[in-house]
């Protein structure tokens, strides 16, 4: 199984909740946006909990986690 975390650039406005709840997984840039904004990353099994937390924390619903079996 593989998983992918994506941040929609048009929806993300830099609330910073994702990197606050999942600091090991995500980080902020100089403008306060998550560095993953507008792109995506592979998620390993042991990162899955953090990725789910990040998705749930976003008030703009800008983050998606897709699982491929």
């Amino acid at each position, binding site marked *: 199984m593989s998983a992918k975390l994506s941040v929609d650039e048009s*929806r993300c*406005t*830099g609330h*910073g909740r994702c990197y*606050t709840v999942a600091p090991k997984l995500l980080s*902020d840039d100089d403008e*306060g946006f998550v560095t993953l904004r507008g792109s995506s990353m592979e998620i390993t099994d042991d990162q899955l909990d953090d990725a789910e937390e990040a998705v*749930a924390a976003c*008030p*703009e619903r800008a983050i998606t986690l897709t699982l491929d079996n």
Partner: protein
Amino acid sequence: MTETSETEIMSASGCPVSHTDYTVQRPLFETYELLAAERERGPFLWNDSRPRPFWMITDYEHVLEALQMPDVFSNEVISALTPEHTFDLLPQYLDPPEHTAMRRVLNRWFAPAAVRRLEPLVLRRCDELIDELRPKGGCDLVSDFAIRFPTDLFLATLNLPISDGAVFLEHVENVFKSFAGRGLKQAAISTEWIRGYFDQAIAEREREPQDTETDFISRLLVSAPGGEPMQREDIITICYTAMLAGLDTTRSALGYIFHHLALDPELRHRLTARPELWPKAVEEFLRLYPLVYMDGRLVTRDIDFHGMPMRKGNIVWLGLGSANHDPEKFSDPRAFDLEREQLSHHLSFGAGPHRCLGMHLARHELVIAVTEWHKRIPDYELATTDQLYERGAQLSINRLPLRWETQDWETESQ
């Protein structure tokens, strides 16, 4: 179309009509009761309490959706209560793409990384203020702490002298008093003074340029958000706006938070014993006590918004406050609940492209204020049984007298 016939049409079409005037001062917490009652009547209402009536959107889902539609709901209007531009504000009155360009310049100054750099100063100023108050055994939290703290930090953020805080504050208060549409003449005089203050700060930097990495105004002077250098008047307006946006809201948030904690010693003791919970607690307080409980918007084109026939030029009230207390989104919404799911989804800082620029600074200031305060003054109570009031338009507790035992700290061994 006259206002009366608009209201008649709304009423006939089944849209509930509200006559509630939200600009007036009310007993503490009454505004939230009114907002909840409006939401229970329906997700959309038509309010005719003001010279220009407006749509009200009251539930979480629709408020969030509208906040994310800047092309339909324009920031040419940012308050449904006072849609006319009493004060020039930037970048609030801009829409994308101009807004996006200006935010790119400003974001950097208010991002978490910038806020972290300011932390030693925030801590020091906070501790100084609390140490000054502690031996007194009591204070009006609102005027003695909650407004002085963010005023000093605002000046520090802009690399302006903190010693200007006191005189600055007097003029700032005059502007805040006018939020509900009263005292406009005095507010205009103070606005002129404040703008003059920033104008002078700009002139000083034009004569003697400062480091654009650490000096806000110097950075704005060399920035070109739309490919053009920023106008001097716009720089003044940005400084003025940051001041309006950052000072009253922080004071107000501290007022509601300390009121809650004064009446809930159990929660206060729990948080004092486990200070690592303060950031989460502040987040839940922000949800529970929205101060900017409404964002205004101007409808840019005729649109059917979930069955509501909105017309170009209509004004819309996006109910941030009622959304925060929407039971469909947050269960038992009027309760403080640290374990709440989706606690960070509150709309107290708005959402969409105009989400509060200062949100990271605000969170940081609030967390430091409550953490440091409770290290030094863990126990206190309300020092009055009088009815307390909140200002309309943008909520703020008028005063919050607290008292505490001074021997508690005098005998401490630390």
